[in-house]
């Protein structure tokens, strides 16, 4: 199997890697680039734990080939905070105890950030449907919805 050389941009920085033709972007991020913030909960696009941004679209990294990142821009949870300043969503998740085990949290924060960039003032129902592809087994989602809405409110008034 011939490896493919890929040049891409990850969290604003140029990055290069080689990968197998059938290797997922998730495996590349985790195993080749050390970006383990995106998690593999299922590998089939059913849990959302590997949510990342690809050319400004929210996607499951497990459903993208590493080779497809050529020339693209990739955003992961590792790029959500601005240096040592947490993103309002990150702070809100801590403040609202919107995580228990935390394994789904990176994916949910990436997904919620994509929502608020598109729709800064969503209804609870819109938040719930947008995040329907992000499974959380610990919280029952209640505090997640509160955390997203509180961050949205803070971002609107910032």
């Amino acid at each position: 199997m011939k490896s493919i050389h890929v040049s891409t941009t990850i969290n604003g920085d140029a990055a290069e890697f080689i990968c197998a033709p059938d290797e997922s972007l998730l495996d590349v991020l985790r195993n080749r680039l050390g970006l383990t913030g995106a998690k593999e909960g299922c590998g089939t696009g059913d849990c959302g734990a590997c949510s990342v941004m690809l050319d400004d679209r929210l996607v499951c990294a497990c459903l993208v080939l590493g080779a497809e990142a050529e020339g693209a821009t990739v955003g992961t949870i590792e790029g959500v905070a601005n240096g040592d300043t947490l993103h309002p969503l990150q702070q809100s998740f801590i403040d609202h105890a919107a995580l228990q085990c935390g394994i789904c949290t990176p994916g949910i924060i990436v997904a919620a950030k994509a929502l608020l960039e598109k729709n800064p003032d969503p209804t609870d129902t819109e938040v719930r449907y947008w995040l329907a592809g992000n499974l959380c087994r610990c919280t029952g989602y209640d505090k997640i919805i509160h955390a997203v809405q509180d961050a949205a409110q803070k971002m609107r008034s910032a």
Partner: protein
Amino acid sequence: MAFDNAPKRVFKVVGTRPPRPDGVDKVTGRALYGADVSAPGMLMAHILRSPHAHAAIVSIDTSAAEALPGVKAVVTAADFAPQDDDFLRDVQDNCMARDKVLYDGHALAAVAATTPAIAKAALRLIKATYNALPHVTDVDAAMRADAPVVQEGRSLETVPDGMSPNVTSHCEFGHGDLAAGFAAADLIVERSFTTAATHQGYIEPHACLASMTPDGKADLWCCTQGQFNVRTLCAAMLGMEASQLRVTASEIGGGFGGKTTVFIEPVALALSRKSGRPVKIVMSRDEVFKATGPTVSSSIDVKIGMTSDGRITAAEAHLRYSGGAFPCGTVDMGAQAAFAAYDLSAVRTLGWNALTNRPKEAAYRAPGAPQAIYAVESVVDELCQKLGLDPLDVRLKNAARKGTKSSYGPTFDDIGLVATLEAAMAHPHYTAPLASGQGRGLSAGFWFNFGGNTCVSLNVNTDGTVGITEGNPDIGGSRAAISQMAAEELGISYDKIRTIIADTSSLGHNDVTDGSRVTFSVGLATIKAAQDAVAKMCSRAARIWGIDEDAVIWHDGAAMPAGPNAGKFPPMTLAEIAAVSFNTGGPIAGHYEFNADGAGVSFGVHLVDVEVDRETGATKVLRYTVFQDAGKAVHPSYVEGQMQGGAVQGIGWALNEEYIYGADGRLQNAGFLDYRVPVASDLPPIETVILEIPNPGHPYGVRGVGETPIVPPLAALSNAVSRAIGTRLNALPMSPPRILKALSKG
């Protein structure tokens, strides 16, 4: 020095909601879970699994796999130590099948190779020859005399003669004269129920990294609810001494009981031993569903007699559980919990466990209780409906309370059931109007809660800060709660404390994070360790002041003379004592180890409104409120989180989650697409009402809270749906096809 041993009731830190210490790591993606670490020279391993529900292993030829370039080790059951102990042998045989494969997905060989692709390719080169055997996956079918026998010779002495060899245990609990009780009833309802096996559904698949060196020393990194238990089990299976195996618990991506045992950890160690290289195994989601532990599946009969004014006169339940292909004691807990919410003069529960060709059960939140209580609470609700009685009134009238002889034997001390029922009664949810097509259901729930072996160290740093070392993986914010209790006891602020979770070489044994035990037991040990450190600090202060140790007390984070006779000295704070500790006798530390008892049972009541689409059988959950006696809530946000999360897992169990087996005995839905856990858009807000009935067994009144919340949703949903559609449903999950079928019959 002297301690005030009276239970503490006024708190500064306990009961507040500080940020959890691992919060930033977890919102930035920095926290390291099971699959997130690597080692130099690491191999990747994959596991060969049975395609048969039941088959004898005739032979396993691994030679071609071993010859594949890049393959560094292949292991089978032959690579593990023989076990005399039944429990250990079962865990080991579940990790690697010995003579028979007992379920679809049962492991029988594993390969470690330089890349995952090579490891997978090598699996295809392993020639396993099977002799397929008849299988059975249904618990009632497994109990029939002519059922295929999953394992011979596994029945305990408690099993009556003449039953299928699949029946491994039998239990009976209760008291009183059932016949007289039923004779006194105005109405008797007797129903049969089934519940499907469900999976804990943690989002993080099992993962581990093992590294053993040729001198027999090993390190194991894994996601587990109990690193000490992993060490005990793995050391036995590998024939190692415990001291030579250090197990570090990674951050854990959910467990709910499912990570209280081992599946891949001994396999990774065996592969590492054989290859001389570090070996990593990460399960796929498919493997998690097929080969880790779901709950028991069940078939239950319940018979309850009631007077026309709502007094239960007699109650009986027969529980048939299957914990899969290995003996399982979960039915004992179901049988004890079934009627725990009631004060009964005549009660009897009988339980049987039967072997089936399904994966070995692992604990899942209040194991055994949700199924039994679902059946009981459904029959109570039907009695209320038929007698025209208010279901909360009836539960209050029959509620267990302090002094009640419980259905499982002991007499209850302070319990919060009545307060919980009264809170539900007073809540606006209970009297809110319902539209046509909607139904309201409720159920009580119960769990025992446990304590267990616990060991905590607390170190006072010279800068006045404190480090706590505990041994239980933090599955939902426990580090925050432990730090809060230490801050409370020491009288310092929360942010001066950092709590970490030790590996097995850094602390004495701690039981697994289970049984809702951590905030209770580790919290208690932390309080005692803090008191130990305080005693030492008081002693240092006494020597500095030149007064008697007994003349010093600890107040508000400082040592001070006990009274005017002790001398006039300004208080010395923890930081001041710590700063001079090297001059006054050396480092200051507190420690405590014990086997905690007195966890205190917990009751909850759930209220739910649903709407059923009569043309499609779809159920929409409209409103949900959880009431629970939590004892003192140390960090109320995480207590609420337990209540909400448990409720939603129960909603999934009630409506959609199930293990579906085909006629071939193979699992049909081993993925999150068709094993349908609730998604955010399925749910309404989950409202919580915490009642704080102090647990007399804990100085702060703490009770375990994590397990009870999964118990009531099953019956609460079933009762709500049954009332909404006007027909009673007696099987879980209440999937749309089942509801539509009931509607067409009803």
